[in-house]
């Protein structure tokens, strides 16, 4: 019975007891179990990517009215395996004048930065790597290591397109970190904790209901952090021919490729955990395996939207992207954070005089926070409308692209 309700904990306990019965010290067993757990999470992540690559190609094909992979296995589901074998056997090419150590270190950093995030994601009530009390900040910190990997790849390739991509990376990832962190602070405020598992436990009402704006800002800015369309300026095939990964071949390119897909899945998992209640659902506490199912259901639904956005939207220009970040997302996130803090604090302050039951207060709090968010959305829409009117006037002015140049001085004389 225990096995069916919570298989992973059951197997872990069984293995730990087995090791102890072999005469190992309990500390050593703990270290071995942690190492095994970390290895399992990594292997699981990589195997998941094999599936999501197929899924994404299939979805891509459907929307573009193609068939997509359809030869290897039913619906082409094993297409990724021949692709993997091909990429394993490809030659490694190191460009002339490349910085060898940095060049080889970059793909490893890019993938490991994504895998590190998985250490704090709670998959089920009993299945999580570790619940550190600074989980949210840890996610942000690990994200900056990924940025470093991309910059190192772009610089060390000794290629001007790669270098351009590195510049764009700094402009994009470092700027979008600002609204992302501000949006992440809203769940921290609402849950009054920074641990990821504690945040899941605090979501009696999903945070997406309490603060839809924070969820949307986090979703958009994390897509930008991944560098996917419409924010894929750092690889922009049509301008800088795949950008920072242009000089990479074989498995080194494969690392970036896998890192990209894994990152997209990771941000879906993060959105599901922080805003959609993670493993929470009916019966998840007593049957942790159900929690696992809820978690992956939510994650895959969000992942579907990530893919959909990638397929449907064209790439932004760099000035549009930066304006969108600094003139729209960041001020909005700042206002949201301040308003949420004031509303939440005054709710807690006036709670004793309101005389609500626990459930009544929960509903009242959700309604107040939701209304506050809707109010902010309305005000934002009014501002955007005024901006759009001004822009219409500006764009309708004649702006000649080519101006007749002044004749050079020699011609006049």
């Amino acid at each position, binding site marked *: 019975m225990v096995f069916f309700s919570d298989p992973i904990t059951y197997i872990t306990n069984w293995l730990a007891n087995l090791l102890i019965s072999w005469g190992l010290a309990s500390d050593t067993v703990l270290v071995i179990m942690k190492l095994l757990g970390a290895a399992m999470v990594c292997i699981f992540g990589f195997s998941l990517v094999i599936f999501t690559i197929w899924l994404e190609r299939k979805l891509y094909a459907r929307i573009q009215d193609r068939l997509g992979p359809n030869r290897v296995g039913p619906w082409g589901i094993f297409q990724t395996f021949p692709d993997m074998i091909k990429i394993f056997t490809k030659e490694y090419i190191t460009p002339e004048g490349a*910085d060898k150590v*940095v060049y080889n270190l970059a793909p490893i950093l890019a993938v490991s930065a994504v895998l590190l995030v998985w250490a704090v994601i709670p998959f089920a009530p009993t299945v999580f790597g570790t619940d*550190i*009390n*600074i989980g949210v*900040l*840890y996610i*942000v*910190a690990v*994200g*900056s*290591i990924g*940025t*470093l990997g991309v*910059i*190192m790849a772009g*610089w060390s390739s000794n290629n001007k397109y790669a*270098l351009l991509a*590195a*510049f764009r990376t*700094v402009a994009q990832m*470092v700027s979008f*970190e600002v609204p992302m962190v501000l949006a992440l602070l809203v769940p921290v405020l609402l849950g009054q904790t*920074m641990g990821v598992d504690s945040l899941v436990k605090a979501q009696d009402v999903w945070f997406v209901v309490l603060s839809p704006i924070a969820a949307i800002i986090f979703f958009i800015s994390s897509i930008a952090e991944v560098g996917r369309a419409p924010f894929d300026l750092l690889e922009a095939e049509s301008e800088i021919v795949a950008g920072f990964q242009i000089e990479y071949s074989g498995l080194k390119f494969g690392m970036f490729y896998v890192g990209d897909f894994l990152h997209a899945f990771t941000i879906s998992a993060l959105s599901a955990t922080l805003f959609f209640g993670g493993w929470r659902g009916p019966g998840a506490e007593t049957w942790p395996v159900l929690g696992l199912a809820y978690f992956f259901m939510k994650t895959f639904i969000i992942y579907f939207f990530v893919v959909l956005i990638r397929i449907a939207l064209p790439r932004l220009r760099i000035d549009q992207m930066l304006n969108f970040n600094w003139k729209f997302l960041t001020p909005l996130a700042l206002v949201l954070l301040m308003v949420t803090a004031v509303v939440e604090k005054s709710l807690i302050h006036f709670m004793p005089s309101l005389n609500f039951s626990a459930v009544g207060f929960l509903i009242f709090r959700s309604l107040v926070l939701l209304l506050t968010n809707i109010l902010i959305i309305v005000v934002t829409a009014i501002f955007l409308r005024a901006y759009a009117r001004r822009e219409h006037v500006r764009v309708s002015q004649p702006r000649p692209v080519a101006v007749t140049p002044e004749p050079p001085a020699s011609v006049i004389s």
Partner: protein
Amino acid sequence: MTPMQIIFILTAAATLSAAVLVVTTRNIIHAALWLIVSLFGVAVFYVLLNAGFFAVVQVVIYIGAIAILFIFAVMLTRRLMSDSGPQSNTNWWLAAVISVLLFVGLIWMLSSWRGVTGEPPVLKSNIDTIGLLGRALVSPDGFVLPFELASVLLVAALIGAIYVAWERK
């Protein structure tokens, strides 16, 4: 020797050698990358001291922001990537004397502090260090004045940056 001490010695060696390499390596980008290794070592020290919050903040601010800005600034000056001139000037002995004096002074000062020789105090297992830190930063009998002064300084820097970058039409 406890495992903790072994980890400490390894981290200290890595941090210090990376710090030396920052100033001795001739390639500026490599210097910036070694600086990142060194800063990361400091983050590990914070973890060893049970200060997870500071460790993560160290990574976010120093590696995620400052080191990346360093690299960005260096990348804009590609021709100066490798420095071939002498790495020290005639005042090197003065710097060496000051560094040695500073080191000796720090050692002398710390040796009289009982935290160096004594056992570290044992933390309660469920202590909320972040909550305590947050309250200390905003409580009137804590550090509210330095905290607010630092915030005002940052705001001034922001306004200054905007003023410098402002393009008058």
